[in-house]
């Protein structure tokens, strides 16, 4: 099909009116083999990270259907993190490559409806990267506090 103009995204539409006590909610889909283990390691090695994240363990990032991501946003999540094994390390050989294509697709579509790509992150955090996991959550929370809530009026999202 022929060219159409690229969508220009208006600056995050909600900025400017962030409640002072805003605590972002992050839903994280983490793979059993790498990032979940990393989160576990972060805990056992007493790494501190903000309690804003809700972990959902999945067997592989390749099984994260975009509708889970979408449902998270529509239920009030301010950001979604999908995290798994580094390329080449996938327990199921190539699940993370499939996840990357899918997230690329979802980025494009959600961006169009005002959910910027900073709110949907895909990261590779290996099983031994407990520190990296804690750091990722910290930086996401700090960033989200500046950005404000993803959806300001949940009643309008039917």
């Amino acid at each position, binding site marked *: *099909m*022929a060219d159409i103009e690229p969508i220009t995204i208006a600056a995050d539409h909600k900025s400017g009116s962030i409640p002072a006590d805003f605590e972002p909610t992050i839903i994280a889909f983490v793979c059993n083999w790498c990032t979940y283990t990393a989160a576990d390691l972060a805990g056992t090695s007493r790494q501190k990270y903000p309690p804003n994240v809700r972990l959902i363990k999945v067997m592989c990032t390749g099984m994260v259907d975009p*509708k889970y991501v*979408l449902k998270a946003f529509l239920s009030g999540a301010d950001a979604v993190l999908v995290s798994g094994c580094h390329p080449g390390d996938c327990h199921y050989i190539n699940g993370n490559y499939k996840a*990357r294509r899918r997230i690329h697709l979802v980025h494009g579509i959600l961006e169009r409806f*005002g959910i910027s790509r900073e709110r949907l992150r895909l990261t590779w955090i290996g099983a031994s990267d407990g520190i990296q996991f804690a750091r990722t959550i910290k930086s996401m929370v700090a960033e989200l506090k500046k950005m404000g809530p993803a959806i300001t009026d949940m009643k309008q*999202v*039917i």
Partner: protein
Amino acid sequence: MEETYEIKGADRLEALRNFLGSLFETDNIGSILVPVQNETTHTIMPTLVSDPAVLAMADPFAPCFPLNGAKLVSNLTKRPGDKTMAVVLRPCELRALVELVKIKQARMDHLITISFDCPGAYSNKVFNRLPDRQEGHTLGFLKKRLESGFQYHDQDQDKNEISLTTACSICTSPFPENADICITLVDQPADTLGLFATTDRGRELLMGRTSSVKSLPETRDESIKAVLDQRKDAGKKVFEVLKSKTATLEKLGSYLSVCVNCYNCRVACPVCFCRECVFNTDVFDYEPFQYATWAKNKGSLRMPMDTVFFHVTRMIHMGLSCVGCGQCSNACPNDIPLAELFVSVGKEAQKGFEYGAGKDLDEPFPLSIFFENEFQDVTGI
């Protein structure tokens, strides 16, 4: 340029019928799927014809597009057969069929695809209310469309003109590209159709069948370009308005506010192929207490719920295959302008993968492949 042929008849419809009739003369074509007008009701529906006499009512050029025929071809070809069938499809139907073949929902091994310069169609509601829908209507419609160079008539500007559907008026691929046999109307005289083949199968069929070998009108390329330019401009305007109306999920909620979750758009969509859609499964069969909790948390719960969820999920699931046929709008009982929404989202999604839905059978569906060193910018913080 491909070798081109021409067929003659008293008018464009007769020329087409003559050609389709001649296909039956080759033994291996047993049936043709083509829109045929019903003698009593004058409705036009895709019909599987095996008796050449029925072709006298064949009317694929009518501004009537009751459903996307790709799904029908999927029904007809899902098991291997040995009889060759010909199907007459609009270019968007053909694109949908190509998408279905890629995901193994249809076969092309015993199929001859025939497509044509598509003059566009009215919505079902408009067409079914036309007082005069007989043969003369189609010819008059064709004449008008061709004389205006397939221009888009804005009903706001000219009250006497009936508007084509939005999907048709912003369609930038109305000319057949990858059919076995392509039929051309643009710049042809009223009693002539041009023919060319884009595949070996098509070439074989055309060879010897049509006596007069002629090149297509020299002005064709220019005329096509003019149509496409005008369509792109029309599309740009439509998409701009759409973007401002759907810039946030809240606004999208307002855009879809009259949706009753009937899922007709999903049924009408030719590339929404799942046998069991997740939205019909137990996943969405919530318990009564869940509704109560949600209503309490939000203060109120608009029902039926999950409307935005359904539509955006559909965009993600089939946006990459969206061929822009506009049947979603056609099927909507509450006239939600879904076609432009899906076309616009689909085009951008496809651009992200440098993919064109239905363009090329050999181009793999983007989510069915992956490479090691691609989309590096997607990951990381």
